[in-house]
């Protein structure tokens, strides 16, 4: 999973220690997330997103393709008989 954490941290002028303190984790955890060696838990990912006022998917990219939206079909053809 890739992420933009380092870029965002740089934009906000935060050090790893600053960000770690506000997230309530160790600096090594922030470093491991930035280098892609560790994927954060869901609560921590939410905290990170909230810290920068973004959505999780704006920061983290799991490389998954979003499924195509289902074509709208005629309701009468999908009715269970």
């Amino acid at each position: 999973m890739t992420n933009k954490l380092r870029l965002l941290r740089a934009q906000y002028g935060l050090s790893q220690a600053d960000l770690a303190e506000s997230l309530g984790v160790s600096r090594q955890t922030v470093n491991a997330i930035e280098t892609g060696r560790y994927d954060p838990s869901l609560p921590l990912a939410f905290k990170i997103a909230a810290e920068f006022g973004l959505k999780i998917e704006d920061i983290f990219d799991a490389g998954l393709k979003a499924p195509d939206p289902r074509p709208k079909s005629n309701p009468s053809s999908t009715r269970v008989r």
Partner: protein
Amino acid sequence: MSKAYLTFCKACFTIENMSSSTENSGWSTKAILTVGSLGDEASRRYTNRSMWALLAMVVALGATAKLGSAGKLLNMAIPGAAFAYIAWQFRNYLAVADELAKRIHLEAMGWTYLIGIAAGIGLGALAKGEGWNINPGFIILLEPVRAGALYLVARRYR
């Protein structure tokens, strides 16, 4: 030149300046290899309390060694009590450790457990076959094994 491009350039410049050794360093190797902890604040508290417990154990063992039968009973109970306290402190440390520290510790303990099981079964079979009398206190040798596993696991997250 757009404002977004300027912001991007500024961010890149800041990243370059941020790439100092302090930003890239990992866990404390010294703490990992000497006391089997990651060297963070919570682990220092655990290490200090463990050291005091070990010191108290040695003093108490010395004090009860020359007593009579009651002292012998105490002498046998003291190491168990001291290590139970250390285990409790380790549990308290894990409860407050951050998620990556917890993960590293649990992975290291998992490896230690597997190595302990394999070594225990192997040595047990050998001891039975050869008639050796192995002191169960040797189980403490798993602690340096855990420190080694902690070192190897922590390296992966640097």
